[in-house]
Every structure is written in structure tokens, then in C-alpha cells.
């Protein structure tokens, strides 16, 4: 799906979720929720001034999806995001404990893995920022090397022309000498320019690895989005179940006060229980899905990590080796010329 659609869906879902939490008899008055909704510096983009007051529930609700960016919840900045996510998890924990509802043993594990994952995610973000920068700089470097090679060659050609001219017009020995040394210089410059351009072709190949891995950041981000999406689905469904249970309790409490049977209330309760069963199924599917994605995420990240390390190693070795080889050869050419022009050196040098 498109990014902005996804973001908007996420925003709506989050908003719904927060409302449900606020409506919860226990969670709605919890310290965690209050802190979450009021603390100004939870994430850099959350701002109290932007919120509108929800008249129905009397609680401020963020009106803009500022905490959501890049399809990754809490991705900007990484630190705040971590807190945000941690907060969410804490609230969730409160709910589960408070209600003693189907406390799946999986829940505490959820928190730990999340933290590990969040560390990894922060690292990936950092890496993608660095890769963006270095990719740009690599482009600039390659261009500068290219220009150097070109100009050295062009300059060499103008001296070739000068040398030919002087040779044709020579009327004295000094002129001929000058034409000769000019030609020697020109030919060396042209030779070196070829070496420079060859070196640059190598550099382009090696540094391409950087661009490659920068490109990989996008699918990685998408994988993260999938995971966050799946987790949200699970949490949303859990909240749904909670609210359904709450309604059942309400209805049962109400009908207890009335003597005799109330048929409509009974059927309503039946309906709700049906709903819960249905939602439980969905939730279990969602959990399976989420676990699957988590596994994929993990193994993929590991694989990419390993490949990246080895590719970067190869890149560095290749880059350095070609720089050394070609610079050596260039040095040799210039030294030859320096030797050939020794007679023109300043005395005492």
C-alpha cells in the first residue's frame, strides 16, 4: 500500500486505541496513561498546543500524526520513540495485570524482544543516515577524480601543440631544446591522465557498494513497517476484546438489579460473546502473523548484516589497493620526467 495511506491508517488506529484505553475503567485513570498523554517531551514532535480536547471523553487527544513518520512508529527520534514504545508496553502490561485477562505468557517476552529490536532499529536508522551522507560524498569524489584526469589530459594536449609549433618554427638550438622538453612534459601529462582515469573507473566500481547498501535501506524500512503494523493489529484486537468484555460486565451488572428475565439484554450478551469469540480468532491469527514477521525480520537483518560487513570490507580493500597501485605508477612517470629535466633544476636543489 502507499506510504501516506498506511500512515493515515496507522494514525486512525492509534487514535482509536488511545480512546479505548482512556475509556477503560482501570487504564483510563492510570498514571502511565496520564503521563503518556500529558508529557510534552515524550517525542520531539508531540506538542500539547496542537491537541484538541476531546469533549466526549474530556481528554486531550493529539490531532496530528506527529509521532508517526516513515511508516515506523517512534522512529524519530530514536530515543523518544523507544520511550513511546516502552510506554505503550507498560500500559499494556497494566491492562493485562489489572484485568487478569488471558495473560498470555507471551506478553512479558513481547517487551524484551521489543527492546532488542528497538536497539537494532535505531542502529539501522543511524546507518542509513551515514550511508546517505557518504553516498553523496562518494559521488563528489568520483567526479573530482574524473575532472582531474580530464584536465591533466587536456593540458597535456595543449603542450603537445605548443611543442609541435616550436619544433616547426625553430631557428635556434635553445628553441629546439625547449620544444623537446615541452614534448616530454606533455607526453607524461597525457600518460598520467590515462592512469588517473583508469583509477577512477576502479573507484567507481568499489564505491558502488555504498550506493547499493543505501538502496537496501528502503526494503529494510518496509520490513520494519510490516512488523509494527502486525503488532498494532494484535494490540488493537486485544483492546477490542477488553472493551467487549467490559460491555458484557456492564450489562450483567445491570440485569442483576432487575427481577425476572430480560430477553433483550440476554440476547445482547449472547451477541457480545459471539463477537468476542470471533475477535479472539482474529487476534490469534494476528499473533501468528506477527510472530512470523518477527522471525523473518530477525533472520533477514542478521543475513544482511553479515553480507554488509563482508561487502564493506571488500570495498575498502579494493579502494585502497587501487589507490596505492595507480598512485605508485603515476609517481614513477613523474619521477622519470623529473630526472629528464634535472638540468633545468635550480642550482643547489
Amino acid at each position: 500500500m502507499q506510504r501516506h495511506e498506511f500512515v493515515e491508517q496507522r494514525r486512525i488506529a492509534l487514535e482509536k486505541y488511545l480512546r479505548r484505553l482512556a475509556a477503560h475503567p482501570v487504564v483510563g485513570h492510570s498514571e502511565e496513561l496520564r503521563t503518556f498523554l500529558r508529557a510534552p517531551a515524550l517525542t520531539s514532535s508531540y506538542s500539547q498546543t496542537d491537541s484538541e480536547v476531546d469533549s466526549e471523553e474530556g481528554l486531550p487527544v493529539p490531532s496530528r500524526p506527529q509521532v508517526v513518520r516513515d511508516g515506523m512508529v517512534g522512529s524519530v527520534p530514536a530515543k523518544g520513540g523507544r520511550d513511546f514504545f516502552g510506554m505503550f508496553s507498560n500500559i499494556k502490561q497494566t491492562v493485562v495485570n489489572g484485568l487478569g485477562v488471558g495473560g498470555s505468557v507471551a506478553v512479558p517476552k513481547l517487551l524484551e524482544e521489543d527492546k532488542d529490536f528497538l536497539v537494532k532499529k535505531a542502529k539501522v536508522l543511524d546507518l542509513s543516515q551515514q550511508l546517505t551522507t557518504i553516498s553523496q560524498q562518494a559521488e563528489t569524489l568520483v567526479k573530482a577524480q574524473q575532472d582531474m584526469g580530464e584536465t591533466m589530459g587536456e593540458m597535456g594536449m595543449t603542450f603537445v601543440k605548443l611543442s609541435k609549433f616550436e619544433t616547426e618554427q625553430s631557428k635556434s638550438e635553445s628553441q629546439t631544446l625547449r620544444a623537446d622538453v615541452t614534448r616530454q612534459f606533455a607526453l607524461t601529462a597525457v600518460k598520467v591522465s590515462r592512469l588517473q582515469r583508469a583509477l577512477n573507473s576502479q573507484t567507481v566500481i568499489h564505491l558502488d557498494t555504498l550506493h547499493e547498501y543505501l538502496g537496501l535501506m528502503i526494503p529494510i524500512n518496509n520490513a520494519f513497517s510490516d512488523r509494527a503494523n502486525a503488532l498494532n493489529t494484535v494490540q488493537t484486537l486485544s483492546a477490542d476484546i477488553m472493551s467487549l468484555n467490559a460491555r458484557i460486565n456492564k450489562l450483567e451488572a445491570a440485569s442483576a438489579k432487575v427481577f425476572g428475565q430480560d430477553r433483550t439484554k440476554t440476547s445482547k450478551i449472547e451477541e457480545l460473546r459471539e463477537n468476542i469469540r470471533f475477535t479472539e480468532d482474529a487476534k490469534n491469527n494476528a499473533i501468528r502473523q506477527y510472530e512470523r514477521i518477527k522471525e523473518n525480520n530477525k533472520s533477514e537483518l542478521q543475513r544482511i548484516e553479515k553480507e554488509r560487513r563482508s561487502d564493506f570490507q571488500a570495498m575498502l580493500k579494493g579502494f585502497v589497493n587501487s589507490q596505492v597501485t595507480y598512485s605508485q605508477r603515476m609517481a614513477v612517470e613523474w619521477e622519470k620526467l623529473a630526472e629528464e629535466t634535472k638540468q633545468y633544476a635550480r642550482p643547489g636543489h
Partner: protein
Amino acid sequence: MISTESDPPAETSSPGPRSPSGQPFVMISVTEPVKMGTGVQSYISYRVITKSNMTEFEGPEKIVIRRYSDFEWLHDKLAEKYKGIFIPPLPEKSAVEKFRFSAEFIEMRRQALDVFINRIASHPVLRKSEDLRTFLLEEEERMERIRSIEAGIFSKKSSDIFQMFKDVQSKVSDVVLGKEKPVEESDPEYEKLKNYIFELENHLAETQKQAFRLVKRHRDLGQSLGDFGKAMKLLGACEGESLGKAFSDLGSKGEILSLKLQKEAHNLLMNFEEPLKDYVRAVQSIKATMADRANAFRQHCELAETTKLKEINLDKLMLMHSERAREAEIDFKESKADSEEATKRFEAIVKTMNEELARFQEQKTADLGLAFHEFAKGQAKLAHDIADAWRGVLPKLEAL
């Protein structure tokens, strides 16, 4: 500097007398550029130090303060008095305000002025000039007075000459006598020489342009390598562990090499591009002399023709036993003397030019040879430094 033999192979600003003590020598340094005044009125003053064992130069040491206009004055005086000689060229007068006083510009100008004054001091004829002595020895106030008196006269003269020789080959037109058809030498050798000089200037201008571009390429490569190095270091910090360290090391090398490239850019500017610019200026100086020669030739032709006409007229008058014959005779004799004078001047210029040309060719071979040698040395060192720097990281990379 003066050596007792022929001129030194390379004219440089580096001090150090080449002649053994006892031989007459004069060594001049243009040093310590200092900005004087403020705003539009500001200028650079230089310390000109003359070291000599000759009495004419008030040895052993004489120090004066001079500015660009003083050098200009000397140049113009010499150009006026020594026709036929290729006067050593001055660095350009800067018209652009902003660029004017950048450190690089000041250093290049100082170097060029140093070369200029030493070339004059080592020229067999120019070094005997009275104006040179004035320049090197007079007190600042007197120098300023001398300069401002002549400033009015000179600016017109110099611009006139430069205006005229824009197209020496075809249109050395004579505004004063109103002649439309230019009178030119028909010497085929000289014609070839004129063509050579004009084409040479084009070639040299092209090489100078490329040289300047090469300087810029060095600066750009230095900049981008430095930026790349920084980005490497940041990536290294992100990577961590031994791979991260390798990145950081590479990044540091990049930054070191960036500095070396900037240094080489400066070296190329001073020791390669500037000598090429100097070569171009020298060729332009020759063109100025060619204009002088053309003027001298024209005068010689015209006066010869005038004299001939006067002779014919005189003969006529004498035949008629006219009273005006005596007057005409005086007139004719005067004209003849002027004509002979003009012819001598012209021939002197031709002779001097030939000597100067031989000197010029030798000089430029030495100058260009030195420039190429320095270029090769600088580039060899840079290439070695680059290879060494990167080689230093290899062991760590191999260990990964």
C-alpha cells in the same frame, strides 16, 4: 642578480649570490608586502632590499619602500629609453577590487615584482640605467614626487603604444601624418618572426588556461577527499568494532591527503601557472617592441622621402639661381641629418632585437624547463604521499 658570465639559467627570487666574492654583484629582494591606507585608497607597499658590492648601488645594503606604481614608473621609463629591448614584463595591474588583496594575489604579485626587478638588474644594458638606480636608492618622498610628475605624461604614452600594436601586422597607421596606407618592412624573415610571436602568444595563453584549471582540480579533489574522509569517520563510528575502526583510519587518511592536495594546488599556482603567465607577458613585451620598430621604420621611410623631395627642390632652386636656394640648402641638410638619425635609430632597434631574441629564447628554455622540473617533482611527491598514506591502512584491512 648579476653574474660575470652570461645570464643565469633561471631567474628566481631565492637569494644567494652565485658569484664568488670579489666579483661585482647586485642582488635584489622584494619582500614584506604590507597593506597601506584604507578603502579605495589602499595599496600594498613592498620592502625592496638591494645587496651589492658595487658603489653605484650604495652597497652593501640599501632598503627602500616601493609600491606597484613605482615599479610601473620604472618599466615605462625603460620602455621609453631603451627601444629594441624586451623590457621585462610587470604583473597585471588589478582592476577588480574584491580579489585585489587576497593573500594568494599578494604573494603572486610580490614574486612577479621580485622576478621583474632582478631581470632588469641582470640585463647587460638595462642594469646600467639611471632610472634603475633611482628606483633602488631614492628616498620614498622623492620617489613619489618623481612618479607623480611623470604620471600624467606616461599614462597617455603607454596606452597609446599598447593601443597601436593591437594589430602590428597590418595597421601601424600614422594618425599624425594622416597617411592611410601603412609603411611596412618587407623583410620576409621579420614577417615570419611576427607571425611566430603572435601564434606563440595564442598557444601560451591556452596552456596557461589549462594550468589554471588544473590548479582548481587539485583544490576540488582535495575538498571532496576531505569531505569523504569525514563521512568515512562517521560511518566508522556507526559501524563500530574492527570494521568501524578501519573506516575511521581511512577517513583520517583522506583528511590528511586533502591537505596535501591543497598544498600542491598552491605549489602549482606559484611555480607552474605563474611562470606560464609570465611567459605570455614576455611575448606581449616583444609585441610592444615590434610596435616601436614599426614606428621607427615608418619614421625612417618618411624622413628619407621628405629628404629626397627637399633635395629635388633644392636642385631646382639652384638651377634657377634663386635666393631661396640657401634657405632650402639648410633645410635639406637638416632633413638629411634627421633622416640619418632616424635610420640609425631603426637599425639600432633591429640589431638590439636580434640580440634580445637570442637571449629571450635561451631564457625561456631555462624558465620553462625549470617549471616542468618543479611540476614533475611536486606531482611525484604528491603521488608518493598518496600511495604511502593508503598503504598504511592495508595491514589493518588485511586483518579484518
